[in-house]
């Protein structure tokens, strides 16, 4: 089963996204700060990472940079979740190495499309 690591500190967001991705047939792992996100990416090797940007301890941009700097986690696609209209957040996310971004609030069909597009073909079905 496809495993997604969701890095997010807001409990309500975790509840919603975890629930909806579970319903869509994914296994969702959760990290609640950037540092934990980097550690879990290395330990669990998820198929994809959903990264909130405004995170405690280490922010989403730095966490993404660290994930993309390590040979064993470099290949994992990262989708940044940015707040709407925060100019600069998006560009900074792409510069940090994110493969795509989506805006919050999450629109499930749109996000699912982006997630599927980034997953290796064998897991997408």
């Amino acid at each position, binding site marked *: 089963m496809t495993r997604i690591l969701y890095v997010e500190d807001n409990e309500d967001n975790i509840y919603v*996204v975890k629930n909806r991705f579970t319903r869509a047939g994914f296994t969702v792992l959760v990290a609640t700060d950037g540092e934990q996100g980097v550690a879990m990416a290395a330990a669990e090797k998820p198929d994809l990472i959903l990264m909130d940007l405004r995170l405690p301890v280490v922010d989403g941009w730095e966490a993404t940079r660290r994930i993309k700097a390590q040979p064993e986690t470099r290949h994992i696609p990262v989708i940044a979740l940015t707040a709407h209209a925060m100019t600069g957040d998006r560009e900074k996310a792409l510069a940090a190495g994110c493969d795509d971004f989506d805006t919050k609030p999450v629109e499930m069909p749109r996000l699912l499309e982006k997630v599927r597009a980034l997953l290796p073909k064998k897991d997408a079905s």
Partner: protein
Amino acid sequence: MRAPRTNAVEIFMPYIVHHSFTSRAVAIILIAVLYGVVAKLSFLFTIPPGNISPVFPAAGIALAAVLILGRPALIGVWLGSFVANGISFFDHTMMSTGTIVSGLLVSSCIGVGATLSAGVGAQLVQRFSPHGDPLDSGWHVVSFIVLGALVGCLISPTVGVLSLAAGGYVSWENFGYSWLTWWLGDASGVIFAAPLILAWSLQPHFRSTPLRVLEATALAGSVLAMSAIVFGRNVPLEYMMIPLLLWSAFRFGTRGAATSAAVISLCAVIGTSQGTSPFFKASVNESLLYVQAFLSIVTTTALMLAGVLCERYRAEQSQREFQAATQAKSAFLANMSHELRTPLTAIIGMTEMLLEDARDLKRDDEVESLERVLRASGHLLALVNDILDLSKIEAGKMELDLETFPVMAQIEDVANTLQPLAAKGGNEIVVNCTGDIGTMHADERRVRQALLNLGSNAVKFTEHGTITIAVERRSSDGGDWIVIHVGDTGVGMTPGERAKLFTEFTQAESSMARKFGGTGLGLAISRHFCRMMGGDITVESAPGRGSTFSIQLPATVTVEPAASAAAS
């Protein structure tokens, strides 16, 4: 009297507000003593025909006292004047009942004249600078000099010389000369003494640092040395006072200018009376008139400079405060909309989950409630987003994200998005395009946002009609333009409604907002974006005949117009 340190707003508050009867009485007595002593010293310089002094700083003390402490100060002025003049009469008059009575009468009349001068002068000055410091701008200084010194001081010599003449102390043929001497003495006294007291009773505009203290010391030294050389050694370098006063005004403001002027003036009066001044003419007292006139003009110039400087300083200050406030506001809005969006995101997400469950379980009544929750929270989110957009536009922080994209694909996409909404109102959407439109270079997201806004407005305000989206590419000497018309056959607008259209938070009628929904911000934001891209949104409409909104954008947007539009 020690002038209380107060700020500019407080200085004209009547003394009564802050102080008890005792402290008011003490203040009045102090004013009387100060006025009396300074006036008595001035009598050392009286000019023989009529024994009028051409140097009378007590008039300035009186005006400043009334300006700072209010009307109770007038009592002190009268007392001081009455006593000082009364004593003078007994100095050189034979004591008899008749002379005592006439001396007392004339003294009290002179006191009334001095009191009226100060009262009327203060009233006039306050009328023209009602918010505090009368020396804080060039215009205020001019009105202070003209009204407080020149006009206000017309009363005292008129009343005074009339009383002296009536009492037989001045002959009627000397009336004119005595009056002029008195008036010049009072007016120049106001110009030197009043600004000195006023400036030191107000908060300074400059902070004191060791370097500034050093500079102030150097300035004070220069002023004293130059005054000693010019007025003590009779060196004709009186024009050297001009650069010194300008230095004081430029570097130390009103306080500096007033202090230097007072010091120079004091030295000039002493020097001239000793006969060691370049102003020395036939007699000491006549010379004093010339020196006073010269110094009055120079001091007025310096005070005006200081006033203009003070004005500019305040303008800069308020500009700085305004910028800080704008920054704080946009930071607050950005944070707030982030904070608002987080729980909203959760509400929307969980409602969607519940909605899916309710649909799966065929709970139709719950489905409707949840759909309403979703719609309401969607509206709230749109509002938060619009407010954030608007605040960023206002703060000039909105950036354009320029890219090249095919125009028609975007328009078809918007038409498809609007389709379900249009079908609900029985509307048809028609897309017309003439020729090959090709691509444009602009902020795709913002173009789409504007288009979607116009389209959803058209759909909202039309029932069983047609929404036409017409696209054309126009060539002009300034380059190619993309023009998109969004027309409807809906309710239309009166010219009055049309005029309010692009203002934030106005829909043609507030009842429309309830009926048709919408934040009332979309159109204003869309137009801001189009203007940032060097284009515009225009509208043609008549009630009952529908409306046509047109977006005009350069086919290739460059960044320069964005910066200027955002700044305006």
